[in-house]
């Protein structure tokens, strides 16, 4: 029987959660024994090659490309997991949510104290994905099956969740793994 596949992505995130995935250290060898990686920054596969069992999504949705990728994940992954606080709550990028988009762009490209932009233009190449009016947590955009909180979730938490899902066993998350202060 073919090994189940997992996919990962970082939307409006900082890749910190992916660093945390890598923090499972040598256990990644155990992991590749039981799964194959599909689309993921870890192996640099850009598009899905087939159906996956688990998708890990870091970061919320800040622009239309994030939304498209997230939809793609929902379509290809049986179980979709919001990984970390940005995916779950919007996180730091969502700090712009109380400020109108136009003001954000003006501050970033025109008025900010450290801005050097002699052209006075806001980048607007047709290749640049349009921003959303605000940053959305993933579950507000598509259905999410599980949420793994943490900034980032620790490697042990990710490991516990993945191995439980892959071996069809109950997830054991002791207090130490889900306490954040």
């Amino acid at each position, binding site marked *: 029987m073919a090994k189940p596949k997992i996919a990962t992505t970082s939307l409006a995130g900082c890749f910190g959660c992916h660093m945390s995935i890598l923090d499972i250290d040598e256990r990644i060898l155990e992991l590749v024994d039981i799964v194959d990686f599909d689309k993921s920054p870890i192996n640099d596969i850009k598009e899905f090659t087939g159906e996956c069992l688990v998708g890990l999504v870091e970061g919320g949705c800040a622009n*239309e*490309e994030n*939304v*498209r990728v997230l*939809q793609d994940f929902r379509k290809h992954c049986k179980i979709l997991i919001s990984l970390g606080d940005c995916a779950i709550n919007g996180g730091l990028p969502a700090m712009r949510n109380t400020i*109108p*988009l*136009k003001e954000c*762009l003006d501050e970033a490209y025109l008025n900010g104290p450290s801005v050097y932009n002699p052209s006075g233009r*806001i980048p*607007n190449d*047709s*290749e640049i*994905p*349009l*921003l*959303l*009016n*605000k940053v*959305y947590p993933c*579950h*507000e*955009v*598509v*259905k999410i099956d599980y949420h793994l909180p943490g900034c980032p979730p620790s490697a042990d938490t990710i490991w516990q969740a993945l191995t439980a899902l892959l071996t069809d066993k109950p997830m054991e998350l002791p207090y130490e793994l889900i306490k954040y202060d």
Partner: protein
Amino acid sequence: MSENFETAIRSMCEGVGNDKARMMDIVREVQETFGCVSDDAMDLIADQVRTPRVEVESVVTFYAFLSKKQNGTVVFRLCDDIIDRMFGFERLKHAITEELGIDIGETTADGRFSLETTPCIGMCDQAPALMINDEIFTEVSRDTLLDYVEQLKAGITPERLRRRLGDGNNSNPLVSAAVSNNIRTRGEVIFAPLECGRALKKALSMSPNEVIRDIKTARLRGRGGAGFPTGMKWDFTRAARGERKFVICNADEGEPGTFKDRVILTERPELLIEGMAIAGYAIGAQEGIIYLRGEYAYLRPFLEDMLQKARNTGMLGKAIFGKQGFDFDIRIQMGAGAYVCGEETALISSCEGLRGDPKNRPPFPAQKGYHGYPTSVNNVETFCCVARILDQGAGWFSQIGSKGSTGTKLLSISGDCRRPGVYEVPFGIKLCEVLEMAGGNGAVAVQIGGPSGQMVGPKDYNRTICYDDLATGGAMMVFGPNRNLLEVVHYFMEFFVEESCGYCTPCRVGNALLKDRLERIMEGKGEPADLDYLEDLGVTVKSTSRCGLGQTSPNPILSTLKNFRPLYEQLVHEDQPFQATFDIQKALGEAKSIAGRPSMHFAE
């Protein structure tokens, strides 16, 4: 602030002895006189009855019939419940908003007319209905309504708009209401002929314990819906220690689709008063309160008169019927438009001059009720049964009905049936027999017991009306084949969201979440998992809410999920591209207009 205004408000407070526990009476009078309870008025009331101002404001903002902002001299309240919606509410709403040029919740610029909607005013058998100030108008057509508006504009007062008076005591000068009783079947308990005073005299010849024993032998259970054994409640109240004890009659008939108490209050007030006096004797109470819903204010002068007559004949007052040591009198407490006040502890809060918040139970009202004194709260119909049991005997009563549910039950039947109205039927009658009587044979669904009850379909029509099968406080709404049942359910959820007092989270938040998810399904954006969500959340709200409102509010959803599941299933689909609440075009709108180019991933 004028001096007259201040004098008037202060004297209204003095009228009830500056007693802050009579806050409801004070603010109602202020509202009636000035068309609002303004900030100034609240300051004055707080000062006069020596209570924090927030106490006054919390009452004023809680009840639908009280308002801080100035109402028009004439207030239209369109009855907006599901039956009225079925019979022309939208038509009336459209006509009157257009005619007055204002929306619901607004007042005309000249300050003459205000327009509001209100949940069920207890006239479902003669829908569509509306109130103009305290006057009730039923079976109103669009043209009639426009004619009313025209006359009111010409300076006619609302009382003079009535074209006809209703049957029975509705034509009594003290009632003079254009309301019909629509009594379709008269049973042996409530609507049988009555010899006033006989039951009370009989009770007074017995000891209080013997009276309670009789009620227990008759196996009388509460008629409001919950069905608690009346004798047991009285036993607890009698046994509880308290310097004073109270009997409260719950005449806050707010459950949409229920109107049988209105008919009892109109046609059998003597029976009610007698039953309350018997209750007072049985539990050792000297004081009784009838909590009358604000919508039935038109019955108040008549009921006050009946109370006075009872005092004149010695049925109320000191040493009743010559029985030394038994004093009992009744006052009427008006409500002001709050469904939750039908819940007994919320009703007690309201009587105490507070917001209609339910109280924690235990202690139950029988131990600590009105102002902390032992209190028995019973339904209007229950008191009537009590009087009849004393008069005719417990054995006679327990022969009527079925084993676990003795006596008769008043049903308020409305909706898609040829003969809507009030039916007095023995317990144990089959639902199909009731439908046959009411001419609702083609019904695809029947809502038993109002929104907090359950909706059943044809496969349940052979079940019986009784506490152990289809329990009901009296409401029965019939829905024909052309009705969209999910719209009915949605209306009920809207109603509960509006009427939740907001004290506990499961009810305040849970009902809103249930309604949102239902809307999502109705829009075709739901998925099969949403049905599980509704069921799970519904059970949570039921089992964790503080009072009867939240403990029953998910019933419309839960009972239709059980009995009419295909209605939901045909609307939900797997593989929705987005969550129902997410609108990609809306989310991209700002950026598109700033960048001046279309989306590359999501074409419109």
